[in-house]
């Protein structure tokens, strides 16, 4: 590797070539085929979910939001269909993020960067923007010709450009609009937006996301994937030789010749490659690369070149999948005359799946068994303990009761620990003085000041644990918390 370069061997190009390469605009050609159909389907699904999910309703009873998916920032609540999360349960999102990351690893170890090619928002919206462009300005050749043309612009061309950007902006605006709907009641906000009654922050966010969508999908496009996104760099460390990446099977394709010449040579019984050098794989590529140069950083594994090549192979009567999801091991095996092997189940994929199953399972378990009643206790720090005039000792606690359910509760508070203790909640005259009853409104917390008093006799002069039990007297649900009772 450490070959010494003789300056005299450097060509003029090496000498003067700038480190910065200007972007070569990509004009992907339309294509039809299996992977294009999968991409259309996933695009429709992803965009459909994104744009329409905020309008799905979910009945949670009176006074609660009726939106199925809602991030309620002012009230610190997250609603997802039947799930309602409080800020202190944010660890569910941590779990979700871990599962998402490992799922990305799993995808990568199975099929390379298929996330990039099919599901990444950048790909989905860029694909949509290309579709609009193609519809208005025509396919690859026409667009190239129109861009190159040095003729003065005619009304027709100007109207094309204006129309394209208008539709792009409309999509971008709708993208930003849908985003803010996740943070507020969608039908109400739509009404407010239309009548210009919505809060300024909604317009600002729509503006930001309109701009990012328009710029990223309309202009930056494949440059985001090639230069801005860290994932292509990270995934290189996560892939292995068994991952099925979009691969040109050079064992079958080389040497490249024309259709005619190949037929002639085959008639003579000679070995000829299937690739006819038609450049269809390059024409359809959304990142503008030639897959026949082997795996490349720019490749997003979308499989459109597979569709393009399959169409050509069908036309010239050769077997399909000259380009396919494959790996170098199989190319080697074919060259050695062995059958290809596809190892989807291997240590890497099994471990990833196990992690996903374990964390996902744990999350579902904790979510299903979580209590909708909770209690937190905080001991007074100053003073930690108070001696009363009769010599008994009192400790004060701040008790926070959490009612996560959709109905009001009446709970009873008990404490045990020090001998002969009595409890009192400040401001509450309970009919049962030894066992204060507290009403906690639905979906809220109540903070109480609770005093525990115990005689000095019969209690050791050190810290002893005290346990607080909170019981819903109607439903029997219970929660408890432990703190300490100390002497002055």
């Amino acid at each position: 590797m450490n070959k010494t370069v003789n300056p005299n061997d450097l060509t003029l190009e090496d000498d003067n070539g700038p480190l910065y390469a200007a972007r070569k605009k990509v004009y992907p050609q339309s294509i039809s085929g299996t992977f294009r159909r999968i991409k259309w389907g996933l695009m429709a699904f992803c965009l459909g979910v994104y744009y329409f999910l905020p309008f799905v309703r979910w009945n949670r009873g009176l006074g609660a939001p009726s939106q199925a998916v809602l991030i309620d920032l002012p009230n610190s609540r997250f609603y997802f269909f039947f799930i309602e999360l409080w800020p202190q349960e944010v660890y569910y999102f941590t779990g979700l993020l871990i599962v998402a990351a490992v799922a990305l690893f799993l995808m990568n170890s199975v099929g390379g960067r298929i996330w990039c090619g099919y599901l990444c928002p950048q790909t989905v919206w860029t694909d949509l923007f290309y579709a609009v462009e193609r519809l208005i300005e025509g396919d690859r050749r026409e667009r190239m010709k129109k861009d190159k043309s040095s003729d003065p612009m005619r009304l027709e061309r100007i109207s094309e450009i204006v129309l394209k950007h208008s539709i792009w902006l409309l999509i971008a605006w709708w993208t930003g609009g849908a985003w803010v709907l996740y943070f507020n009641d969608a039908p109400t906000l739509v009404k407010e937006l239309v009548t210009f009654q919505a809060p300024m922050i909604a317009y600002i966010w729509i503006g930001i996301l309109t701009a990012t969508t328009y710029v990223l999908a309309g202009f930056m496009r494949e440059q985001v994937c090639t230069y801005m996104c860290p994932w292509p760099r990270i995934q290189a460390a996560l892939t292995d030789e068994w991952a099925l990446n979009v691969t040109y099977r050079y064992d079958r394709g080389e040497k490249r010749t024309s259709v005619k010449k190949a037929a002639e040579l085959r008639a003579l019984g000679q070995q000829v490659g299937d690739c006819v050098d038609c450049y269809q794989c390059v024409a359809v590529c959304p990142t503008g690369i030639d897959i026949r140069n082997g795996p490349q950083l720019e490749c997003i594994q979308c499989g459109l070149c597979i569709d393009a090549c399959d169409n050509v192979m069908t036309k010239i009567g050769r077997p399909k999948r000259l380009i396919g999801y494959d790996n170098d091991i199989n190319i080697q095996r074919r060259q050695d005359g062995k059958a290809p092997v596809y190892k989807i189940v291997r240590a890497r994929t099994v471990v990833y799946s196990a992690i996903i199953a374990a964390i996902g399972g744990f999350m579902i378990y904790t979510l299903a068994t979580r209590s909708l009643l909770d209690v937190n206790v905080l001991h007074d720090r100053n003073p930690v303990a108070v001696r009363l005039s009769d010599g008994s000792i009192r400790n004060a606690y701040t008790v926070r009761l959490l009612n996560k359910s959709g109905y009001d509760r009446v709970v009873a508070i008990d404490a045990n620990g020090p001998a002969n203790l009595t409890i009192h909640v400040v401001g509450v005259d309970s009919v049962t003085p030894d066992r204060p009853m507290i009403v906690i409104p639905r979906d809220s917390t109540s903070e109480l000041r609770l005093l525990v008093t115990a005689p000095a006799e019969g209690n050791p002069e050190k810290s002893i644990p005290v346990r607080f039990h909170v019981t819903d007297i109607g439903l029997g649900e219970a929660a408890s918390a432990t703190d300490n009772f100390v002497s002055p």
Partner: protein
Amino acid sequence: MTDHHSDIDSVTGKSTTGHEWDGIKELNTPLPRWWVITFYLTIVWAIAYWVVYPAWPLISSNTTGMFGYSSRADVAVELANLDKIRGDKMVALGAASLADIEKDPALLALARAKGKTVFGDNCAPCHGSGGAGAKGFPNLNDDDWLWGGTLDQIMQTIQFGARSGHAKAHEGQMLAFGKDGVLKGDEIVTAANYVRSLSGLSTRNGFDPAKGQKIFAENCVACHGDGGKGNQEMGAPDLTDKIWLYGSDEATLIETISQGRAGVMPAWEGRLDPATIKAMAVYVHSLGGGK
């Protein structure tokens, strides 16, 4: 200095800076123009900032800038807005009776929050940030009150104080029996031991309870009552309980009896608005000792 522009590096074809270290020359790669322009713009920006905003410290003040901006004025506006927002709630607090405030969870929470802040600003220097008190400054968490522990009594004490000079202040003090020559040395020691015996504390050898009772009856019962149970009208503490403002050891009691005690609680009426005083009364009452 040589004209480095003529010194062309043979490999890259670029000019060098003319600096050479052990045969290695540095290529002349000037900063990009946009970078340089941005740099000059930041200087222009800084100068404009000095002019527009307060910037330079002077001997007694500072330059005020073109529009007289000050962050303190911003805070004043924010605080005024806050008062406006809280206005209704504080009015409700001022209108409600003390007992009603403690019954209403929302008002109680507001009063406790407000009371806690105001307590920290005004009361904590003597009573401690948690109201735990110190020698001579009562613990507000316990159930022993010199001037009474009901909501109304607490509020009255906060409003007018004790020996504060206010016309409605609590008056009455522990007389200096020794200094004023009312009791002699050995009588004071006997009285101190008698007071200790009232709450079951040990007494010194040779202490005569009958003599102590006689001294107590002649000098102390007027304020502290027959059994030494104290009198909240006069701020006379209960001498039979476990709580001692200055201390229960013999030396401290001798000091108290001979020198007298007259701690001062300032009057807060006029210094704090009525709603705030109410909030503080509720806060102190809710610390736990309130009757």
